[in-house]
């Protein structure tokens, strides 16, 4: 009997690991090289695997710490929530839970800060919050940040990571693409610098709106960037796609991205670009 077999096997391997007193929750396995990493080491290495150099996704606060001069970040006090436009039963609870889990208000944080002394308006998205999807709150926050940049005459920096428009808010999410694009058109007219930094993964309605509309588009190495996912396109057109399709490197080669920048070089690169465009 199967049940007997399971019993004979004794405690599960996971339990045995616990017995040797390894602290649970402090370790993570690299998705690329499978090496087991101490989370603290990872954090101290800009969320890059010390073993193989693979990039891990970053929490908003870690990203801000790594880009903005210490103590200079001031978040915009725009405390807003969606109104659940489609009246989905489980959506508000889902958002509530995510807020507790991530300590974030939504999938984007916006504010002002300094990069090596230079004033900027910065927006950072987070994949941990419903895959960084853009609903009404994200759309409003980005738009607000763009308008603030115009008012303050500061350069605008947006770090993107997103699965696209947020399905749970239906057509209202789609309209955020138009809303943020309208805002960018005003920013262009004001002649202000806008740099987007595309991080893994940036897809859907975010790629198809503000992420692609920057004056300078940077990306992290190996970031996956696109509109529809690779599998969806292959199924739709009935053809296989080229190697490396939708990687930052492929997009750089085809002229969509201006430069791929290593995570540890990002801050100084942004500073140089701001200085250069002053």
């Amino acid at each position, binding site marked *: 009997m199967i049940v007997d077999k399971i019993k004979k096997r004794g405690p599960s391997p996971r339990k045995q690991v616990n017995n040797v007193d390894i602290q649970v929750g402090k370790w993570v396995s690299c998705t690329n090289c499978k090496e087991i990493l101490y989370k603290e080491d990872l954090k101290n290495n800009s969320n890059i695997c010390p073993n193989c150099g693979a990039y891990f996704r970053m929490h908003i606060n870690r990203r801000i710490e790594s880009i903005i001069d210490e103590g200079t970040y001031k978040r915009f006090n725009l*405390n807003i*929530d969606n109104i659940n436009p489609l009246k989905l039963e489980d959506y508000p609870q889902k958002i509530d839970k995510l807020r507790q889990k991530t300590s974030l208000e939504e999938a984007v944080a916006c504010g002002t800060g300094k990069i090596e002394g230079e004033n900027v308006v910065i927006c950072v998205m987070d994949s941990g919050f419903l895959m960084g999807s853009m609903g009404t709150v994200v759309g409003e926050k980005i738009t607000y940040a763009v308008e603030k940049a115009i008012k303050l005459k500061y350069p605008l920096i947006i770090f993107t990571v997103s699965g696209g428009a947020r399905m749970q808010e239906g057509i209202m999410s*789609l*309209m955020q693409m138009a809303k943020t*694009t309208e805002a960018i058109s005003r920013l262009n007219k004001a002649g202000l610098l806008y740099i987007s930094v595309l991080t893994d993964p940036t897809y859907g309605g975010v*790629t198809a709106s503000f992420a692609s509309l920057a004056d300078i588009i940077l990306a992290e190495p190996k970031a996956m960037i696109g509109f*529809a996912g690779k599998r969806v396109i292959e199924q739709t057109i009935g053809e296989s796609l080229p190697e490396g399709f939708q990687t930052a490197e492929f997009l750089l080669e085809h002229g969509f991205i201006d430069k791929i920048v290593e995570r540890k070089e990002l801050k100084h690169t942004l500073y140089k670009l701001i200085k250069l465009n002053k």
Partner: protein
Amino acid sequence: MLEQKKGDNGEAIAKSMLKMAELKVPVIAIVIGEGSSGGALAISLGNKIFMLENAVYSILSPEGYASILWKDASKAKEAAEKMKITAKDLYDLKIIDKIIKEPEGDFDKLANNIKKEIINSIKELKKLSPKEIVEQRYNKYRQMGEYKKLDFKEKK
């Protein structure tokens, strides 16, 4: 299709919207069938948006929606009911300005209804200066997406 292969159709949508946002002439968009996702939005950034009575306009096809949200494309019917995609839904959500009636079996009458709305809109929008036209479009999209106050403190 070629654009898809290079992977920059997302950029094409964004650039198309940006261009439309800059236009100094009135833009009137009319959804006449099934409009969905970025492709529809890319060519419909208008000062006025109308929809035919039986047209639909959505973030994604109900099949795609069900498969993303519930991992089950066969729930398309349920998705279609939840998604708010009809002309009336979109009018209530203040996304479209007007529903154009579709008299059954009478295409000439429908064409006339469309024509009438286009002429009326042009007459109305003609009164605006080029700058005001751009501003009217901006404000139209600026107010899309209602939200409420949130009591939540972000932690470091």
